[in-house]
């Protein structure tokens, strides 16, 4: 009762607090309706160059849209830009539309007048509008697509969501000092940065010196009385874990099966219907460019790489360098790639596919840099882009840290353990939770099993978190981290609520978005300049004898990237360049009637030659060269004369 009274006055208190508080992390970000309206505005101002194409609807009925930018008519290679699979990655959607504006700007059109003669660009700015709107509405950040789900498998759905105990509009962490049984303290305040929590050192000496103090939870109550805190919130399917490449079956947030959601289905159908998409970049929480994942390992089948085939790695590393040089981004925290959209494109559809977080942890002015924690902590993260980067989970924000389904201690995850962080990134040992991280947890035996004591040595201070705190303090007026403060709690009496704003480390201040879009556009121009160009030479016909002709032509890749990556060749999902002569087989004296060219390296030329019998008065011979990616050129040859048919 007392708790309820406190809860009732909480909004008033928090309104007072908000008036004094720093600007919200989400200030200046737009909801899904405003974003699609913006896409339409862009289209309206584009002189017909950009059109809005409907792709379907989300589970809750919001429209899914793509912006097509390019000239009508011929088949041209296409570049796909996808953003907003993750409803908490707000900046990706804004940058995607910002890029559209930049590409259509006067300046860009002047500097790259032939851009749309070379490619068509598709932008899908917000794949997951339901989650995006919920995230902006608060307080619970929604990463995945909405799918009501019984996370704790108790027969009730979404009955124990996180609760905004202090009414500040943000769900963060909740820590309980010396918790009553059966809850177990597992964390201590990090002596190097007391706002952060870490696991205590293990070993007999450490046990004497630092005993675990806190049990840590997501901000919430035990609404369903099962002894677990906030373990069954609004069900969600992480769209970037819902695709068939290394699909994490049975993970709580990966959906009931591959491509199970209306949003992932719409995206898939779009990709399958557009074979001309040869290249793609996905803006979101995966990075393949600032630090190009350098694993050479294959998945369990041995035939699909965890990230890239060794044969493609150098190409992707070169693209990474181009990206860093043009975008200026030097840091990125990447999530694990299992089930991601961008790697499905790369490894199942054979697309030249990239992933960008668009923003990484910024530098802090020198004088406000954090004091370097003492040894034996890891040295300061070097500024070099190739250095190991932020722990991926830390970058996800507090809430998702706690809910992250990648549990290295979990047997089902362990099988794919080596796959979890191919980039060599570390995962933070997770705080113990009441809620099951995977569907297999919980059940008879009472409350969610308290975390097993760690066998490993203590987790070092989370360097990245320290830097983020410094950035929050120095540049963001403290907006990134809610200081620990006491709040009444129905189960524990009093708890402390605090931690990183879950959106803070993913999304830059909205004022920085235009500049980011400019830089991303610079990369896109560079990328498009590198794309393969299919150069078909007009056939030369030589008469060898009466009614006997030699026909010669060639196909060359005049671009800098191959027409298909090695993975594109392996998957057979890329269209071969098909060379076809219409003459009947028996009239072809020498040469193949149908020829397939599966890939052309940069500068690689394939010579084509036939000798055919074509007595005067016989049917004209048609030579076609091309495919569904680059378009097809048709030549008609009659009486030794070549004419190109209208494309």
């Amino acid at each position, binding site marked *: 009762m007392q708790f309820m009274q406190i809860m009732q006055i909480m909004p008033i208190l928090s309104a007072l607090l908000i008036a004094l508080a720093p600007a919200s992390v989400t200030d200046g970000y737009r909801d899904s309706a405003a974003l699609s309206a913006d896409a339409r505005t862009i289209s309206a101002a584009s002189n017909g160059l950009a059109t809005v194409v409907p792709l379907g609807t989300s589970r809750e009925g919001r429209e899914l849209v793509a912006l097509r930018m390019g000239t009508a008519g011929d088949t041209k290679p296409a570049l796909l830009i996808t953003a907003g699979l993750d409803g908490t990655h707000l900046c990706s959607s804004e940058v995607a539309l910002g890029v559209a504006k930049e590409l259509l700007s006067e300046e860009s059109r002047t500097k790259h007048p032939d851009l749309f003669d070379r490619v068509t660009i598709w932008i899908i700015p917000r794949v997951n509008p339901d989650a995006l709107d919920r995230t902006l509405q608060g307080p619970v950040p929604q990463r995945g697509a909405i799918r009501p789900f*019984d996370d704790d*498998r*108790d*027969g009730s759905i979404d009955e124990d969501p996180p609760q905004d105990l202090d009414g500040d509009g943000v769900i963060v962490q909740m820590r309980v000092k010396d918790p009553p049984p*059966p809850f177990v303290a597992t964390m201590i305040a990090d002596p190097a940065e007391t706002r952060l929590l870490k696991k205590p050192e293990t070993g007999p000496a450490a046990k004497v010196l630092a005993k675990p103090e806190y049990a840590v939870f997501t901000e919430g109550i035990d609404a*369903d*009385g*099962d*002894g677990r805190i906030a373990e069954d919130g609004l069900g969600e399917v992480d769209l970037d874990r819902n695709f*068939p490449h290394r*699909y994490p*079956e*049975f993970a709580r947030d990966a959906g*009931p*099966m*591959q*491509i199970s959601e209306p949003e992932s289905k719409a995206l*898939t159908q779009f990709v*399958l219907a557009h074979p001309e998409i040869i290249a793609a970049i996905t803006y979101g929480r995966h990075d393949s460019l600032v630090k190009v994942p350098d694993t050479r390992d294959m998945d*369990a*089948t041995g*035939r*699909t790489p965890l990230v890239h085939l060794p044969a493609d790695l150098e190409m992707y590393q070169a693209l990474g360098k181009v990206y860093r040089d043009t975008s200026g981004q030097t840091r990125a925290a990447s999530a694990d790639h299992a089930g991601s959209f961008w790697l499905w494109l790369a*490894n*199942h559809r054979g697309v030249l596919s990239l992933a960008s977080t668009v923003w990484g942890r910024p530098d802090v002015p020198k004088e406000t840099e954090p004091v370097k924690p003492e040894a034996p902590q890891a040295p300061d993260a070097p500024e070099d882009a190739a250095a190991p980067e932020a722990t991926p989970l830390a970058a996800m924000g507090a809430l998702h840290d706690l809910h992250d389904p990648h549990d290295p201690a979990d*047997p*089902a995850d362990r*099988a794919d353990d080596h796959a979890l962080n191919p980039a060599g990134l570390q995962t933070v040992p997770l705080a113990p939770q009441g809620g*099951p991280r*995977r*569907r*297999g*947890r*919980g*059940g*008879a*035996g*009472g*409350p969610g099993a308290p975390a097993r004591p760690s066998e490993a040595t203590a987790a070092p201070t989370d360097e990245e978190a320290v830097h983020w705190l410094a950035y929050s303090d120095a540049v963001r007026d403290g907006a990134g981290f809610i200081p620990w403060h006491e709040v009444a709690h129905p189960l524990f009496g009093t708890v402390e609520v605090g931690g990183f704003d879950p959106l803070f480390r993913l999304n830059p201040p909205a004022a920085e978005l235009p500049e980011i879009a400019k830089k991303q556009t610079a990369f896109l121009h560079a990328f498009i300049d590198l794309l393969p160009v299919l150069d078909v030479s007009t056939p030369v016909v030589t008469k060898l004898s009466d009614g006997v002709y030699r026909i010669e032509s060639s196909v060359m890749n005049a671009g800098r990237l191959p027409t298909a990556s090695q993975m594109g060749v*392996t*998957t*057979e*999902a890329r*269209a*071969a360049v*098909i060379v*076809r002569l219409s003459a*009947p*087989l028996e009239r072809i004296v020498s040469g*193949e*009637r*149908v020829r*397939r060219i599966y890939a052309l390296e940069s500068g690689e030329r394939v010579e084509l030659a036939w000798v055919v019998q074509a007595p005067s008065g016989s049917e004209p011979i048609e030579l076609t060269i091309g*495919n*569904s990616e680059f378009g097809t050129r048709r030549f008609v040859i009659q009486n030794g004369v070549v004419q190109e048919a209208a494309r």
Partner: protein
Amino acid sequence: MKLARTVLFLLAVAVAPLSVSSTAFAQQQLESKVPIAFDRYYDHEELIALFHALAAAYPEFASMKQVSTSVRGEPIWVMTINNPRTGADTAKPAMWIDGNIHGNEIQAGEVVLYTAWYLLSAYGKVPALTDLLDHASFYLVPSMNPDGRIHWFAEPNTSSSSRGGVKPTDNDRDGLLDEDGPDDINGDGSIGVMWRMDPNGTHRRSELDPNRMEPISAEPLADGTVRRGDWSFAGSEGIDNDGDGQVNEDGIGGYDPNRNWPADWQPNHVQDGAGEIPLSLPESQGVAEFVLAHPNIAAGQSYHNAGGMILRGPGAQDRESAYGARDRATYDAIATAGEEMLPFYRKMVIWSDLYPVRGGFVNWLAESLGIVAFTNELWSDNRILQSGSGPNEEQTRRWRERVLFAQTIAPLKEVDHPTYGRVLVGGGTKYSGRIPPPFMVQEEHHRNFAFTMFHAAQMPRLRFASVATKDVGSGLWQIDVEVANNTLIPTRIERASSNGIGQPDRLTINGVDVVLAGSLENRFDRTINEQRYRPATLENDAGIPGRGSRFFRFIVKGTAGASIDLRYSAAKAATITTSVPLTAPAEEPAAGELAHDRGSR
């Protein structure tokens, strides 16, 4: 037109002479409202018409539902068989039985027909099957791939062709779809093989049997002369329809519907024929929805041909861990029984004993949904000699000539081929392999049907083996509950409980205040493995094992004589309930009482 044919066919069925005497039951011979001959094969239209006829004749037990539509617009039907007087189909454990996901594997669909026919005809006459149908329901799919079955019957084919569906696919990557399939160039209704005239030939035509080609040894004779034949093998019957220099390289379809399911689904470069994405085929989508909507499915059989195999997963070596020791024991116990019921059949594991399969339907049932599921590969060549080994070439020839009277031989015929010139074309008809000859069909059907009934009877059947109440003082009572399962299949297989598939089982107590509750290791255990929260509904994620039991203890506040209600529910078993009074010493419990849960699912 089609309707008219169906009606005529049904009339034919209805007026078929009934030779069954009134003492049929004593002869194990079933009197059925729909007499069906099982010494022949039925094309797709006939097969589905017979299913409808059965549903019409046994409306109380059988109903037909269309769950999918094929690429060519054919319905995919599920027949539900259930006795509504003992509860809804969804309130009982159910067995899924399908056939013919490969179009050419025709007897797979026919066994499903036999299953429906026998089960429906036997209710009320054969006590074992009556009891089974009172406690279990069945979902039967006569053909998962109607387009493939229709094509196999209607068009020239081999015993192995028309395996997949008919969705146009560019197999030779020339931008054209299905433009160069086999052609029946000798017009005999079969796709045979071709031999082209070749002065350096590897074969010659047998003088004794003009339908046989004899190999000519490439080894020189003792005197140094080299013998040469007149003919060389030229592939399967067909021409180069698309003029690319290759023959039959892009026929109809060109994918495998049994690689399209979302368990270990892998793209084409890993698993040939998988399709672009899991469930990319319209046939698969509706079936998957039906299966997902029926968590009561506890057993599965997916019929294929051929080879005499009782197959379980996994389909790939890297999935071995999906079958833990307890699950392997369950599978082995059922399959071992099958080996005895099915002479010349052997229990096998798909990847190690057959070949690797990713995205297989039976793997999806077993590994994603926790259903104990097998694939039987129907018909074994060992049955030709009935000896446990297959016939050699000569024995096969004699079998075809002497037992089958050469009816499956397509005689070699000389015809002109546009590319190869003079060719000999022939071989076997599409009935020449993989399927039993008609006179052996019924035995094959019956034994496999019997095996699935054994499998179905192993679905969990629960009872309260004991409920003991005891006054422990302080106004508290102790209630010990033993829930037992006498069949082989647990309520939750290891795969399900270790991956959180579906809901845990629940034991609920009503009528008293629960102070403490949990499970016990055994009946003598004194320490309760306590469920501290919400103890009136004990969750049991491990389920009740096969041929075993689990113990639970409640400590409750209550007064002597108060009645308590117990209810045990599991997704793959019928719910059981019982009521006992708080008395000491415990009275004989109302054990084994089966109460069907009506309406709560």
